[in-house]
C-alpha cells in the first residue's frame, strides 16, 4: 500500500491509483449518499475494518497467529476495485464535492481513476472493424455482378437479390455468437472475482435482486447523484437512453424481421408501416442522436478521462444507425445495393469487435449493479 499522496506508476497504475483513492473514500465516507459505487466503497471499507474485530474469539486469535498466516494491513482487493469501477457512472458529483480533489495534495479524482480501471476491461480494435467493413464492401463489389449491384430492386426479397440471405445470415451470426460467448465468459470471471465467500453470505439471492438491478440499469438511477444531479448528468442520461434504447429497438427490429422471415415467410424489405421498419427507424434515429450527442458531450470535458474506446464505440454505433437509415431512405434507388453492403459492413465490423470493445461495459455494469442490489437487499435498504 502506498501513501495517500504518492502518484502511481507502471502498468498497474490504474488499479493502484483506484485503490489509493478508494481507501481515502472509505475512510472519509462523505459521498456515501451519492451512488452505489460510493456505497460499495463504504461497505467494503467497513468490512475491512471489522473483519477480525467482530468474529474472532481469543481461541481463534491464537489459532490464526499460531498458523503463521501471512498478515498484511487491510486493503481493497483487485476484485473490489473492478467492482467499484463498474458501478461508477462517471457523473462527477463526488469530484466536485471532494475536499481532497486537486489541487489538494491527495489529488482524489475518483471518476477519472475508476474510468481508467474500467478501460482495462476492453480494448478497441478499430482496425478490425474497419478491415471487415472494407472487406464486406469490396467482396460485394467484386462478387456481385455490377449490373445486379447497381440495379433498382424492389418488392419482396430485394435485398437478397444483391446479397443472398444465407450469406448475410451466416456472416452476421458467426461473429455475433462468438462475441457473445466471449463476453459471457469474461463477465462470469468478473462475477466470480467479486463474489468472495463473505460477500456471498452477505448478499443473498441473485435472482431476487435481478428486478432491482434491471431497474437501476434501465433508469440510470445512479446518475441522480443521490439528490444532487450535476448539470452534465441530465444531458448524459438523456443521450445514453436515446442510444441504448435506440439500440434495443433496432435489435427488436432485427428479431421481428427474423420472425417474419422464418415464421411467416415474409421477405424483406418490409413496408414503411411494418413493425420492423418502424422499430428500426425510431431506434436508428435514437442511436444517431445519442451517439453524436455523447461524443460531443465527451469532448465537452468535465472529468474528461480521454477514453478513445468511447469514441470508437460511438462512431461504430453512429455508422451502423446512419447507414441503416440511409439504406431505408434510398432502398428504392440504384444506390441500394452499395448501401446494403455498407450497412452490412458496419454491422459485421461491430459484431466482430463486440467481445473486445467498449460495449462490454453493459454486461459488466449489469453484473456489478446486480451484486450491489444483492448487498442492498442484505442490508435491508
Amino acid at each position: 500500500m502506498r501513501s495517500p499522496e504518492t502518484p502511481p506508476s507502471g502498468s498497474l497504475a490504474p488499479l493502484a491509483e483506484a485503490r489509493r483513492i478508494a481507501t481515502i473514500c472509505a475512510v472519509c465516507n462523505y459521498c456515501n449518499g451519492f451512488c452505489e459505487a460510493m456505497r460499495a466503497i463504504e461497505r467494503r471499507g467497513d468490512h475491512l475494518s471489522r473483519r477480525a474485530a467482530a468474529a474472532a474469539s481469543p481461541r481463534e486469535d491464537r489459532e490464526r497467529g499460531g498458523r503463521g498466516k501471512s498478515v498484511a494491513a487491510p486493503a481493497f482487493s483487485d476484485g473490489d476495485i473492478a467492482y467499484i469501477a463498474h458501478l461508477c457512472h462517471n457523473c462527477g458529483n463526488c469530484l466536485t464535492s471532494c475536499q481532497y480533489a486537486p489541487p489538494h495534495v491527495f489529488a482524489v479524482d475518483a471518476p477519472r481513476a475508476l474510468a481508467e480501471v474500467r478501460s482495462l476491461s476492453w480494448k478497441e480494435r478499430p482496425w478490425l472493424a474497419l478491415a471487415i467493413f472494407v472487406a464486406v464492401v469490396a467482396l460485394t463489389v467484386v462478387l456481385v455482378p455490377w449490373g445486379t449491384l447497381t440495379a433498382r430492386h424492389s418488392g419482396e426479397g430485394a435485398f437478397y437479390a444483391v446479397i443472398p440471405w444465407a450469406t448475410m445470415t451466416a456472416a452476421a451470426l458467426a461473429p455475433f455468437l462468438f462475441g457473445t460467448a466471449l463476453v459471457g465468459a469474461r463477465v462470469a470471471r468478473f462475477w466470480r472475482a467479486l463474489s468472495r465467500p463473505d460477500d456471498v453470505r452477505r448478499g443473498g439471492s441473485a435472482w431476487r435482486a435481478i428486478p432491482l438491478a434491471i431497474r437501476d440499469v434501465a433508469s440510470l438511477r445512479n446518475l441522480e447523484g443521490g439528490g444532487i444531479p450535476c448539470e452534465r448528468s441530465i444531458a448524459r442520461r438523456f443521450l445514453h437512453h436515446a442510444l441504448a434504447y435506440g439500440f434495443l429497438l433496432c435489435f427488436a427490429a432485427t428479431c421481428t424481421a427474423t420472425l417474419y422471415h422464418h415464421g411467416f415467410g415474409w421477405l424483406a424489405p418490409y413496408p414503411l408501416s411494418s413493425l420492423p421498419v418502424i422499430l428500426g427507424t425510431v431506434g436508428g434515429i435514437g442511436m444517431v442522436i445519442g451517439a453524436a450527442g455523447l461524443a460531443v458531450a465527451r469532448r465537452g470535458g468535465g472529468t474528461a478521462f480521454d477514453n478513445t474506446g468511447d469514441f470508437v464505440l460511438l462512431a461504430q454505433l453512429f455508422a451502423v444507425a446512419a447507414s441503416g437509415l440511409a439504406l431505408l431512405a434510398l432502398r428504392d434507388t440504384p444506390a441500394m445495393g452499395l448501401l446494403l453492403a455498407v450497412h452490412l459492413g458496419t454491422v459485421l465490423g461491430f459484431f466482430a469487435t463486440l467481445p473486445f470493445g467498449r460495449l462490454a461495459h453493459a454486461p459488466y455494469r449489469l453484473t456489478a449493479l446486480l451484486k450491489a442490489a444483492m448487498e442492498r437487499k442484505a442490508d435491508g435498504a
Partner: protein
Amino acid sequence: MTGALPEQVLVIGGGLAALAAAISARRAGARVTMLEAAPRELRGGNTRHSRNLRIAHDGPTAQIPGSYSEDEFMADLAKASEGRADPALSRLLARASSDLPGWLAAQGIVFQKRDIPHSRKTAFFLGGGKAAVNALYATAERLGVRVLYGAGVDSVDLGSGAAKPFHPCATVIACGGMQAAMQAARPGFINRGTPYARGEVLRQALADGAEATGDADAAHLVAVDARSPHADGGIVTRVDGMEYGMAVDARGARFADETAVTGPTRYATWGRLVADLPERSAALVLDALGIERAPLSVFPPLEAPTLPELAERIGADAATLEASAREAGRVTRPPFFAFPMRPGITFTCFGLRVDETARVVRRDGSPCVNVFAAGMIMAPNILGTGYVAGGGMTVGAVFGRIAGEEAARHALA
C-alpha cells in the same frame, strides 16, 4: 454583480458563516462583497472539511431521526463548555438551529436522507461540506453577491467598519479562528483544517479594543498521522484504534490507558494526550491481530518483523518498547505495525465577544455599531474550549444569518 458600486455589506471569510451572512444580507437588499482568502478551488474554510449541523428538533424528519430538544442542546453546550457558554447566545443558537435545515435547503444545500450515520442530534450535508459550500456559492453568485478569491484581509477598523481598501456601511468578520497561526507557533502541530485561518483580523481587532472570549492557548485537537499534509488533511488523517494496540511516546513508553475512552470523544482525548507529550510525538503500535482490528487507514503502517526493529523504524528505544508491549499485553504477535502520530488542530478556541445581534463587543462593554462577527471567530462565546459534533457549523449558519441580516439592516437604514 454590483459592478463599480460601493458595497454596503462587506463579508470577510468564505466558509459557512460568511456565506450565510452574504446571502442573508443580499436577500435583505444590500449590495454585498465577500472576501475569501483562499483561491477558488480551496474556498470554504473549514466548512469544506465538515459534514453535519447540530439541530434541535421535536420529532423525526427526513434528515434526522428521533428528537433533540432545545433544552437538551443547551445542556450539551453547557457541559462541553464547562459552564462557560453565554446563556443568552446558547439559547439563541439552540432555538434558531431548528430553522436551519429549511433555510439552508432554500439556499441550495441538499441534506442526506439515506445511508446517514446514525445521529439524532445532527443533520448531514449530502456529499459533505464542500458540496454544501458549492451550493451556497452558486446561490450567492446567482443573487449578485460579488465574491473575490485570494482576497485576505489584515485589519478591520472597529469604528468605521472599513477594511482597506473597502469602505462598506457594515462589515461581517467571518474568517474563522487562528489555527494556521497556532500551528506556526507550535512546532510539531499539524493543521487539519484550512491554512487560510490565520487570525490576523482577530489579533488586530483585539489590539484595537475588542473583547476576547475563549482561551488563546486552546484548540480542538485530534491525534493525526505524522505523515499528514501540513494543512487541509481533514477527516482522513486521524489515527484510530488505540484500544487494539498501544500508544507510545517518542521513547517507546506508554502514556495512557488505551482502552479507557472508546466513544466518540476518543479523538479529542488522544489529540490532547499527544499534544501534552514533551516531543508532541507518539506512535500507535499494533501487532498482527491489532492491524486487522484497527480501522482502515489511508496511510500505510510502518512494518517490522520484531519489536526492536519496529522501535528503530519509529525512533524509539527497543527495550522500552518491548517493556511497554509486555505491560499492555495486546502487542504480542509478529509482524508489528506502527502509525506515527502528531497533534492535529481542527480549530482554535479563541475569538471575539459578540452580543445577540452578532455585533462585536468592546472591552468597555459597548457593541460596535457596524462590525459583526460570525462563525468560529465568535464560537468560543458558546463553546468555550469545548466541542460538540456539528456545533461549529450551526454557530456559523445561525450567527452568519443574524450578522448578515443585521448588517444589511444597518447598511440600508
